């Protein structure tokens, strides 16, 4: 065939001479419209928390417009921030979270380094296996763990139930796997030539880790730290099960159990407590949002 004998008798499409730039502006308008809608949806609860926290109990029970503060007051904040009990909750949460973050990084980073760089027998299975631990949720483990700790307490006399330091053992099970996974991803993206250059320069494995890998993978470390902190701070089930006396409680449990006194819901204080409880993660998020998101999406992009 000298020319391609294609019969143009296929169904012809009705050509719409719309304006491309007009289409594009409309697409943008719709995008912003829906984004605003979703933003409102996302922000209503926290904003409502703020509004309520500024109301005295008189205004709340007067059932005036709930979306507006007529007589703003900081009395809730003052009461909570001067309450030893609340400060105790805050302190417990802070202690637990900071220590857990440290423990997590101390476990995750060397493990990630070993799994990504030092190929040893079983390293590949271990790397995927680590991730599978998330398939065993805390809501399955809390009962056997409760029994285990009770038994351990009986055997050794070391009290593990109703002690906040118990959480230091449990929280890492939730943070270490993902942090290890993040770090494996970051470490794996460091070119092998850097290792070899370091070896030639005379560095031991440990020195390679501390002087080369950690500085280069710093964004990953920050992301992992943020993740570990946020997860620890937000824990509810484990502390609910393992801590019961008010001086042992962390913030999420403390606020939900103690501020709700019987049937009288002191909502002004509850919302203030909730907002203060949400403050640390929100602040970290506000300042380090990019690291936060980078940690999350390490999976989507680095695989």
């Amino acid at each position, binding site marked *: *065939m*000298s*020319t*391609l004998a*294609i*019969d*143009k008798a*296929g*169904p012809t*499409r009705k*050509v*719409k*001479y*719309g*304006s*491309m*730039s*007009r*289409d594009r502006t409309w697409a943008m308008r719709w995008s912003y419209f829906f984004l605003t809608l979703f933003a409102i949806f996302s922000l209503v609860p926290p904003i409502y928390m703020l509004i309520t926290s500024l109301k005295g109990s008189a205004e709340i029970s007067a059932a005036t417009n709930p979306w507006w503060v007529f007589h703003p007051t900081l009395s809730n904040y003052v009461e909570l921030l001067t309450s030893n009990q609340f400060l105790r909750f805050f302190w417990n949460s802070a202690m637990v979270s900071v220590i857990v973050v440290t423990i997590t990084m101390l476990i995750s980073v060397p493990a990630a380094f070993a799994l990504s760089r030092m190929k040893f027998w079983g390293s590949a299975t271990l790397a995927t296996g680590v991730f599978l631990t998330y398939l065993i949720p805390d809501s399955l483990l809390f009962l056997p763990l409760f029994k285990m700790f009770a038994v351990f307490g009986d055997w050794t006399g070391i009290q593990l139930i109703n002690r906040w330091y118990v959480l230091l053992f449990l929280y890492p099970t939730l943070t270490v796997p993902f942090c290890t996974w993040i770090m494996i991803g970051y470490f794996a993206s460091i070119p092998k030539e850097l290792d070899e250059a370091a070896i030639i320069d005379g560095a031991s494995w440990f020195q390679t880790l501390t002087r080369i890998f950690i500085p280069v993978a710093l964004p990953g470390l920050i992301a992992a730290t943020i993740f570990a902190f946020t997860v620890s701070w937000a824990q509810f089930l484990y502390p609910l099960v393992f801590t019961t006396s008010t001086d042992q409680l962390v913030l999420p449990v403390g606020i939900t159990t103690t501020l709700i006194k019987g049937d009288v819901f002191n909502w002004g204080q509850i919302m203030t407590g909730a907002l203060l409880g949400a403050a640390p993660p929100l602040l970290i998020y506000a300042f380090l949002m990019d690291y936060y998101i980078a940690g999350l999406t390490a999976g989507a992009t680095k695989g």
Partner: protein
Amino acid sequence: MAEVSLRKVVKRYDDVEAVRGIDLEIADHEFVVLVGPSGCGKSTTLRMIAGLEDITDGDITIGGDVVNDVPPKDRDIAMVFQNYALYPHMTVAENMSFGLRLKHYPKAEIKSRVTEAARMLDITDLIDRKPKQLSGGQRQRVAMGRAIVRNPKVFLFDEPLSNLDAKLRVQMRIEIKKVHQKVRTTTVYVTHDQVEAMTLADRVVVMNKGKIEQIGTPNDLYHNPATRFVAGFIGSPAMNFLPCRLEETGGNVNVRVSDRLAFPLPPARAARYQNVPRNEKLLLGIRPEHLTEANGHTAPGVENFETVLDVTEPMGMETLVYFTLEGTYVCGRVDPSAGARDGAPLRLAVDLNNMHLLNEGTGAVL
């Protein structure tokens, strides 16, 4: 009818003008190549024809209809991208038939078109493979197949061979030319490689900094460049530019290149440069292929001179020689048997019948 015409087309990004008013008429069945250095606006122009970029000002018509506001899917064009842009999750057959399937062409028709195009491009045994199983050259063929199958008004090629190795590039150039001979669709082809431009085009459009420098057939551009840019862009190795002056002494005009070197203006060029002011600083443009070894014969316009070579590059079928003249680095092409050696003197002949005189300031070829 599928002529393409661009009238006073402008593309502005914020305050940068990437395309600064170009006019171009492409006839039906013509193969036009837009060529130029990076940033000259050729890709932007192509994308405006495709509808992937908005046109800031001016008109583009395809087949007589103004398409400024028509979205790409309604312009009846096909495009071959530099990075192939094959759908990774579809087989070769599915990639090629995608456009037809969207328009609900009958299955039999799709099958026959795909088979025909695959045969033309010699990819019939690859028809069920996925892109990641193909080599670069094969992927490029599939991309071309995708374009052919739709039988559009215009083919658009955006530097399709830039990602291929040198040998493959030569092969694919021939394939593209063969396809055009068979299918005869109007084609607009963008490249930065002037060899591709010269070998493929019916007409070449040389662009620079958002404007068209010259439009012409490959031969036109080679023999009659209009500007210094075109003269230096077309042809490899590039044309030599030597500062010179025209001297007239008693009716004889000489081209003086240096204190020691002057050539008489050949009679073939005398008429052309009749009105060029004498004793003004000009540029002499002479292509390396017109600087060869002296071979003892004389011919009108061919002058011999002696020089000391700096560097030689033996290419096998010829040897490139480089020497310095009045501070300018000059390139010539001599026969390998001429005995050219680094640092050694050599007697060269310059064919001034193919000389060009340029005004350095305006860049115009006189």
